[in-house]
């Protein structure tokens, strides 16, 4: 079903839906929205002289993710993602793994936002069947569509190939073997690229485990502590001239750290 690049064949339900949607963009509406863009940017134009603009209280803070419940995933999907990411970064003697660090919550909230719809990407094709490596993403499927269809395909594959058991019911070594087959594109899911699903979860797991805790994952900065990343610091003059000495400051997130006092 997939080629070496793990791309989906054209013609799935989602792709058809996407094409129908694209057909709705008429020449007239495209010109109208282009005109609107010009008008909007023209109205905000200003000449900066002498000093850069500055306003008091100007800040663009992120709304912190509040853990608890899921906004995109069904309970069953969340359980599959929990089990999946726990195999990618398991809890072990180095500390908590991806599941306990909140990675499933991170992915859930990302899928709910603009990332989940690829809102910031050009998604109107044409999509190449044989893209050059430099041509990047070549699929009309948004991350939301990838997870919804991909997790369903994974579950169907497990039920069919593991005696009626779902992914969460597999033993750890069975899960590892299946994940490995998905990575290589060898697991043949019905109607979906196993490699595409693997790639999405793999990338999002690393993002969730190492992104700022404000986005729902990397609980207690566990990922940063694991690799020794100092967090949202941006000046190291105090330590630059001290090679081969330990860096002692603990990591800090956008919301600070416990030593700042209660929030």
């Amino acid at each position, binding site marked *: 079903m997939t080629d070496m690049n793990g791309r989906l064949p054209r013609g799935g339900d989602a792709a058809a839906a996407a094409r129908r949607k694209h057909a709705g963009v008429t020449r007239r509406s495209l010109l109208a929205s282009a005109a609107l863009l010009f008008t909007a940017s023209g109205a905000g134009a200003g*000449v900066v*002289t*002498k*000093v*850069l603009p*500055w*306003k*008091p*209280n*100007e*800040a663009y*803070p992120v709304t912190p993710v509040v853990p608890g419940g899921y906004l995109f995933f069904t309970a069953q999907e969340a359980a599959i993602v929990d089990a999946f990411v726990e195999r990618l970064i398991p809890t072990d003697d180095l500390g908590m793994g991806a599941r306990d660090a909140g990675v499933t919550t991170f992915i859930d909230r990302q899928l709910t936002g603009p990332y989940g719809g690829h809102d910031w990407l050009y998604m109107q094709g044409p999509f190449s069947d044989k893209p050059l490596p430099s041509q990047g993403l070549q699929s009309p499927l948004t991350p939301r569509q990838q997870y919804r269809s991909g997790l369903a395909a994974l579950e169907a594959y497990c039920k069919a190939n593991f005696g009626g058991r779902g992914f969460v019911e597999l033993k750890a070594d069975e899960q590892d073997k299946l994940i490995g087959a998905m990575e290589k594109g060898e697991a043949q899911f019905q109607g979906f690229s196993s490699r595409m699903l693997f790639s999405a979860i793999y990338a999002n797991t690393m993002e969730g485990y190492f992104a700022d805790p404000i986005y729902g994952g990397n609980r207690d900065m566990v990922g940063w502590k694991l690799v020794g990343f100092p967090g*949202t*610091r*941006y*000046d190291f*003059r*105090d330590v630059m001239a001290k090679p081969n000495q330990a860096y002692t*400051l603990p990591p*800090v997130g*956008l*919301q*600070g*750290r416990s*030593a*700042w*006092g*209660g*929030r």
Partner: protein
Amino acid sequence: MRRVVNGGWAQLRHALLLLPLLASGAAAEPDNYVEIARGKALATAGDCITCHTANGGAPFAGGLALQTPFGAIMTPNITPDNVTGIGSWSADDFARAMHEGRRPGGSYLYPAFPYPYYSKVTRADLDAIYAYLRTLAPVTNAVNRSTLPFPFSIRQSMLGWNRLFFTPGVFVPDPKRSDEYNRGAYLVEGLGHCGACHTPFNSFGAAKTDHYLEGNQIDNWTAPNITNDMHAGLGKWSVDDIAHYLKTGQTATTLASGPMKDVIENSTSKMPDADLRAIAVYLKERGAAGSSPPAPLSASDPRMQAGEAIFADTCSACHTSNGGGVEHIFPKLAGNAIATQDDPASLIRIVIAGGRAAATNERPTGPAMPSLGFRLNDAQVAAVVTYVRNSFGNAASPVTADTVKALRGRVTGAAD
């Protein structure tokens, strides 16, 4: 920029209209260019434009709401417009307003207009300012001059206020002091009206003359102690430091922000160096007064420990971990008098809302500090401010979360 361009055209139009008059020799007044230029320089030293210009409004056309403890007062239009400005005022009318705080009809002006200071300005200087103001293009801008609530709306009550708190009289030089000192005194105590912000008020809004220039809180900013006090004042500043600060908006280790930014950009940066030096000499020589420094809080105090963590994570990248800052860009916090004023308002509000430094011809960058109010709660702001006030050799009273909460409410509401 548009305002300036329009003003230029307006002046050109006036010049063209005047042309036939001049050509026919009908100009009755003597050539008073020197007088007008002198008046312009004096108006600059008095910084009339900052209060008498609304945000985005025409210069000198009034309409800025001055926030006082008694309510907002709208500054009047002082362009020579006959109806809405002071076009119908004579030189005597103008001098009376400046010297006595009275309008031509005799009604009272509020001392938000600092006539207790202007009373010291010589009549010759007032006439020059009057001559300059007459050259401005008249702007029609009616200002609501009755915004104070009852009972402060009764202007006649200023009669009693004046009896209690106003000592009229032109400046008298001290013959035992240098000419430079006396020039500085004349500027600071008179036209410069420095004490209007830098001297604490009593409950009637009058200057506490026994605490002259010892600092005050104005519009949620700290107007610091500018006596020669070593702890809270200018004791660590040289005459050159002060003159340089007034000219450029900064010393190597300090940047002006808040209302002083406007004062420097509109007024002192355009004043003659000799006058700035005279002001500095006066401030350094007239004496020191201020509260004695408390013992610094112990580094083991929980507020200090939280503050140290916040400072290391949030502030030290620019202000450096030892509070040394970076010259001309990031103010030095060690020994910074703003950090150790009794009143922590400026320190708190700059952390919450951010701040922008003055931009002058000599130092045009105008560095800015970002707002951190989104990131730090009231207790955390209190902790980091308390830490700054009690580290790097600084010592000042700790700041409570309640103080931060009250100020946050005031500085995050309306833009300023």
